[in-house]
């Protein structure tokens, strides 16, 4: 009696290069695989074809895009259309007013003549700023894993 069981592997992401050794039905020594192992040559060929297919799916070749020719007058019409649209847009943009200055005081001379910031206050602020600077300069990345890895090619 033939016994076969599938080996379940924990790979969740489909690898670009499929491992031909996965999904092989393990046996107890004797070669019981009904779908017999193809020769190395065709195996490799199948691998390469799969890579090609996957790449073709993921890559967009802009130069190969088929472009329809446009007639001269069509082209001119569209250029005029776009130009008009741009004009309308640039007009609405230039009308945007900058944020007006808020009013901080109705007595500017009084405010400016008032006592200057005390020496003690300046010292305190400088100290706080120095602490903040020191704290920020100590921020660093704690890398838990390798950022650069080798692709494992069987």
């Amino acid at each position, binding site marked *: 009696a033939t016994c076969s069981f599938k080996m379940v592997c924990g790979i969740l992401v489909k690898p670009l290069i499929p491992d031909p050794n996965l999904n092989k039905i393990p046996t107890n020594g004797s070669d019981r695989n009904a779908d017999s192992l193809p020769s190395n040559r065709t195996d490799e060929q199948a691998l390469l074809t799969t890579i090609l297919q996957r790449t073709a799916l993921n890559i967009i070749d802009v130069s190969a895009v088929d472009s329809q020719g446009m007639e001269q007058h069509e082209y001119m019409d569209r250029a005029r259309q776009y130009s008009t649209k741009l004009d309308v847009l640039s007009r609405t943009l230039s009308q945007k007013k*900058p944020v*007006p*200055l*808020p*009013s*901080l*005081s*109705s*007595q*500017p*001379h*009084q*405010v*400016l*003549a*008032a006592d*200057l*910031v*005390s*020496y003690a206050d*300046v010292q305190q602020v400088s100290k706080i700023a120095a602490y903040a600077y020191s704290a920020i300069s100590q921020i660093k990345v704690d890398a838990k894993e390798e950022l650069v890895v080798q692709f494992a090619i069987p």
Partner: protein
Amino acid sequence: MTTALTQGLERIPDQIGYLVISEEGVLASAGELENDELTAGVIMQMVRTACRFRLHGTAEPPFKRMSVMFEDYVYAVTISGQKVFVVKRQNNQREPVIV
């Protein structure tokens, strides 16, 4: 018009120069800040940035006066009626000496 703006500034104790700036440019200048458009430009940028600060989601800027402090002098800045007032004052404050 300039006398109304600048009279009060002239009388500020230990002032060594001032500027009155509007959105269009410098309206008046005197003393060490006379014709100093460079300083005017920098201070305009600084005060516009400072005006964007808010405390606890309040609607107005949380300050009446902005002070740019150097070793020997201070630029005191405020805004009133769409104009920025800058006065350069001497800064004589030193560490208090305990006798």
